[in-house]
């Protein structure tokens, strides 16, 4: 893609639910909110493996990977996605997400190197603002 074609490109977000958890209400609400905010949404859906998520981010040239996890398996799953991102040199891609995740775990995840993680009760506008800012600073066109 030429730089010119890039100037008005949309923010590209891959949304996925890793693991076995089928609770996709939050992921779908965020997909709709991102869409309405003008983002390009690549919704991978349920039961994604860390491998399939990172592969999709590579293929789709995503700016952001957003994971939704409500099963309690977030520590394991974020860590594995992060590791695969490093291995594939996706250092300039944001890994963010949300779910039923306590403050303590959110701190631990962010320290581990994820972007911001959003707990229950977050407005859809907060991650949208965050992603816009992050992409503006880290992946300027």
């Amino acid at each position, binding site marked *: 893609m030429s730089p010119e074609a890039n100037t008005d490109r949309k923010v590209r977000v891959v949304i996925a639910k890793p693991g076995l958890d*089928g*609770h996709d209400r939050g992921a779908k609400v965020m997909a709709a909110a991102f869409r309405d905010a003008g983002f390009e949404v690549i919704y991978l859906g349920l039961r994604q493996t860390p491998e399939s998520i990172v592969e999709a981010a590579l293929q789709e040239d995503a700016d952001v990977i957003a994971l939704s996890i409500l099963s309690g398996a977030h520590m394991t799953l974020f860590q594995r996605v992060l590791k695969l991102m490093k291995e594939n040199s996706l250092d300039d891609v944001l890994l963010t997400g949300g779910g039923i995740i306590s403050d303590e775990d959110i701190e631990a995840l962010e320290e581990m190197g994820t972007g911001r993680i959003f707990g229950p*009760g977050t407005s859809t506008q907060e991650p949208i603002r965050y992603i816009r800012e992050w992409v503006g600073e880290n992946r300027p066109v």
Partner: protein
Amino acid sequence: MSKRTPKPNGHDAYRSGYGSFAEDRKRWEEQVYQPRRRFRKDGITFSTVSSQEVPHIVGPEYFEENRWDPRERLAWPGEYPYTRGIHPTMYRGRLWTMRQFAGFGTPEETNQRYKYLLEQGQTGLSVAFDLPTLMGYDADDPLSEGEVGICGVSVSCREDMDILFDGIDMGEVTTSMTINGPAAIIWAFFIAAAERKGIPRAKLAGTLQNDILKEFIAQKEFIFPPEPSVKLVVDTIEFATKEMPKWNSVSVSGYHIREAGSTAAQELAFTLMDGFCYIEETLKRGLDIDSFAPRISHFFNSHIDFFEEIGKFRAARRIYADRMRNRYNAEKERSWLLRFHTQTAGCSLTAQQPENNIVRTATEALAAVLGGTQSLHTNSLDETLALPSEKAVTIALRTQQILAYETGVANSMDPLGGSYYVEWMTDKMEEDARDYMRRIEEMGGVVAGIENGFFQKEIARAAYTHQQELDREERLIVGVNAFEHKNEKIEIPILKVGEHVARQQVQRLADVRARRDDAKVEETLNALRRACENDDNVMPYLIECAHADVTMGEMVREMEAVYGTYVETAYF
């Protein structure tokens, strides 16, 4: 003391006895309401949590205009159409069953929790399984990594079930099991475990959730495609009818549909239609409606909008009785009765200021009781974050006991019956649900609706609408988008599941695999495969597998080879 002379007003005119209720309503609107009405300026919607507009008041004109006959719309408790309740004595005869859903970690740990709950006065057990179990994976499957014992108890083989019910009289306590995709397999483990203790299967009483259609619609824990999945449900219905007269083979569930974001009317309509689908498929197999219908139960959500929920429960009984009697020509009265379990709404709880969840849950539980539920699970205050702590579970159970024994709400039957607003709400729920039911039938039924994404789209839209209302602050949730504590740290004792769980479960599977008779495993699995290919009822074959220590994952893979798997198209 000066004596006040009453001013003449509309009330006197009404008392003097002229005019219809509609005229009187009109008079009140014009003379009292319109001139003096004022509205709060906070921008908060007056619609229900389902975004349903409601009238500012309902009065006697509603009954008058609709030729509303209580003998037809309500009757009496224990009488068709059962709007006022399914039993002639309701809670005077028997309180609802207080059934708290529980399960975590190893079967040993959950077994301890069950014994604790039974000691605390709980009257039935309800098993929560972990995600690998719900999805049909053994604890040692690579896909189970990180999820063993997290969301519930891990059960991969019959021996896990033996331990889960160790020291608990399986023939006395009723057991509800929340399992869908591999429901028939888990049931086979349960039956085999009981048989090993010398309890005949006919003596077992309990409920299998076993509602696969709502998995495709909402919760997404399916294994096989819709058609063979429904076939398996019919297998369990047939088996229960013939061999286990005290077992509720299906608990047709709206709970998860609602949690996924549906409205109350969608929950009602989609749930009832799922149940009717199982009924119609079972009829096609040649069973008599009255032989199995009395063993089908339902499971609804009780959300935070008090009157909407009460209307939903009352409407559910009325629609069900009508359809069972007039469409399926059931003759036994028991076939007409919609019996249901209720769980308060997990999605209404907040991680912020979690103590407030006690109040939410109490309100929702009250709606369920006033709506005539047969059993109830009250959520624990810490459930938005993790599995509940023992203290939180106890408060949730105490909430039910306070409602039952202190508040007096269970003393008189259907105490809200005849309330203008509650009857309007009940009628509205029925009307909206019937409208959806017609649309689903026109598109070719529930399976067709799943395949064309109808349900998924409807629910996704409702969930997004709700979220937008919250984002715009047209709807408030205390502690979340209003009345927040700044910089609140979430500090509640949370039950953490230890890493020993996966290790122990994997080890047990290894021991079971090493010890069992491999020839017997192969023989029972081959028989299962043939039963699937020949479209026979698989239950007897699954029970044989369970006795032979075949694991769940092994049975699922065998069945998948015949039935295939399913990948959904996502809609948002």
